[in-house]
């Protein structure tokens, strides 16, 4: 299986994720789309690791998963806080900077 096939699948998933981020006003749906984009990058890293015969790509994928875990934890806490303040998870509702 050529590397390009995995890269094209990764590009497709990344573009779909970007579409979700732009299309949705719902903060939860946007987070889910960001997860999809992170996984698209992971697939590309793992496929490249196999192609080049090195494990660096797989290790980078571990770091991406660790960062994704941190991102989801903090992101969901922010979503819960916004939902408490504005009774909605619509990102356009949280448009003022007051604390």
């Amino acid at each position: 299986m050529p590397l390009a096939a995995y890269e094209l699948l990764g590009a497709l998933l990344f573009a779909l994720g970007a579409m979700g981020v732009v299309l949705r006003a719902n903060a939860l749906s946007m987070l889910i789309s960001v997860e999809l984009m992170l996984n698209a990058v992971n697939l590309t890293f793992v496929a490249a690791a196999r192609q080049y015969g090195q494990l660096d790509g797989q290790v980078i994928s571990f770091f991406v998963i660790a960062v994704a875990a941190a991102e989801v934890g903090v992101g969901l806490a922010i979503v819960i806080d916004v939902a408490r303040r504005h009774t909605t998870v619509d990102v356009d509702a949280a448009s003022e900077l007051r604390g």
Partner: protein
Amino acid sequence: MDALTFSFTAEQAIFAVAGGICAIAAANAVLRHDPLASALSLTIALFALAVLYLSLGAAFLFGVQIAVYAGAIMVLLVFVVMLLGATGGRPPLIARRPRLGLAGPLVALALFALLAAAIVRAPVVAAPTAEPAADHVAALADVLFVKFLFPFEIASVLLLAALIGAVVLAQRRTP
């Protein structure tokens, strides 16, 4: 590569099935309005990706993907979706209004075209000659704990900071 022989290798079959499931589930996750349906669809895509990792020789990452991503991260996401969606009475907390209607597909199309053009033009890399290490996990540990030791330690600090930040943010009460 002889185009006239229609014999599929195991890897090609796995790529076709798992990649197809992954693409369909991902599209469904993005196009659904309901975050719960999106989250469950994304979980299917994550499992399909785990299968692809396995066929790419990343057996340990297959386990991590299922345990950490499809397990822990998605449970947290679904938990919060249910938490915010199950507060009857007031107007629904789940925003359904689509935003910037046509911009999304246009952005996706432009991005995919750009990436695909770059991928197709990239020089073809010769397949590796070296056989994968017999002890996959030990080889992985050698890279992770020697070459990437400093990023590994930074990752632990990042996770601690995220843990504390999440607790502080989520427990704050609005006056």
